[in-house]
């Protein structure tokens, strides 16, 4: 049950220009990969490439499960700037959609526990359109906790602390630390300072 990520000479383009020189990084289970860089350096694009949502112009991104190649779709959960929730549907409906697409069986108990952990259990049946930005963000983070078992998926977090209050940020930091202990890989971009207790942190400066 060990996940590993191999970024091999990856280059990404935006508008026909390369964003950064070829990037080569390999990480294994329990690593926090902290992607840093100025605005427009290509952090989000890199995360999207890791999630399989963008294709590199050169090089390749490889995910391995116990040494065997696996797809980004099976190995990762990506939480980006947008919340991936439809305003007209309830939190539960949105999460059930997300889990089904991620190829998991939707278990209400699991969803309940995830929402509970993020402190938004009482919002489960509310339409997303009626929630505040912070509440939406928390609800969308619940997607991370719907994996098969702790540590089973890599988390790709693009600016996860935006719109979160201090307490929620602390809680998220703890969740990330726990997930890392369970053997996950967490890739993270952030403009805010954070304190995550991790055995191994790799910094990537774009």
């Amino acid at each position: 049950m060990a996940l590993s990520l191999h970024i091999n000479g990856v280059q990404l383009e935006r508008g026909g220009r390369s964003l950064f020189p070829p990037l080569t990084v390999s990480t294994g289970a329990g690593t926090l990969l902290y992607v840093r860089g100025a605005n427009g350096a290509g952090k989000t694009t890199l995360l999207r490439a890791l999630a399989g949502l963008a294709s590199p112009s050169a090089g390749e991104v490889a995910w391995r499960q116990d040494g065997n190649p696996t797809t980004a779709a099976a190995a990762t959960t990506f939480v980006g700037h947008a919340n991936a929730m439809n305003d007209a549907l309830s939190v539960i409906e949105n999460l059930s959609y997300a889990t089904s697409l991620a190829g998991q069986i939707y278990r209400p108990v699991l969803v309940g526990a995830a929402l509970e952990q993020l402190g938004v259990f009482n919002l489960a049946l509310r339409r997303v359109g009626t929630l505040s930005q912070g509440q939406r963000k928390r609800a969308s983070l619940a997607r991370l906790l719907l994996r098969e078992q702790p540590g089973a998926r890599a988390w790709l977090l693009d600016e996860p602390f935006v719109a979160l209050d201090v307490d929620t940020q602390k809680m998220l930091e703890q969740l990330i630390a726990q997930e890392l202990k369970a053997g996950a890989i967490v890739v993270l971009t952030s403009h805010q300072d954070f304190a995550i207790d991790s055995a191994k942190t790799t910094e990537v400066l774009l």
Partner: protein
Amino acid sequence: MSLRLASTAVARREFQLFARRKSDWANPLMFFVIVCSLFPFAVGSESERLRLIGVGVIFVGALLATLLTLPRLFDEDARDGSLDLLLSSNEPLAMLILARVAALSFGIGAPLILAAPLFSFLYALPADVALMLALGVAIAVPTLLLVGAIAAALLVSARGGAILTAVLVLPLTIPTLIFGAGAALKVLFGESPVAELSLQAAYLLFALALSPLAASAALKISTD
């Protein structure tokens, strides 16, 4: 197994949205109703004249109403980020798009199919023509949505979406328009519509086979 799970989820979400936001299916219907009601003012109300243009008006009206719903396919999802869920699914994207188009055809198509015969009577068309029209619209709506899904997918990240969608999609709907309206006209003139109807259905099958693949390629291009 998990493909079935995922495509059911896609279709179910579409129906949930239809139930939550009635305007999603009511607006195209209203558009269709109003377009169909405008023509007699322009061409006159003699039954003979109406009967001749009726089939065409109703068919084109239904196609345009369906065209209006194309941005709903991917635009909203692209804005709120849920398109990424679809794209990062392990299941074949083409099948998920197909599930979505199927649900959308049902949600948009059913009201139009019910409205088409009603308007046939306003255009002094006999009942058998009205039925044939409903059948023709029932085939044309999914055809347009399938072909339109390609354009909608391409235009997710481009400027000038709505008009460009029409420019790209409408020429490709000509076969279904010719055969669908042709079948109803054949019935109107007391001939057998079988040839037209089968050709229209053949074009639907053709679109069914190729469009989801093209649309998934398109979606990957525009979100890359």
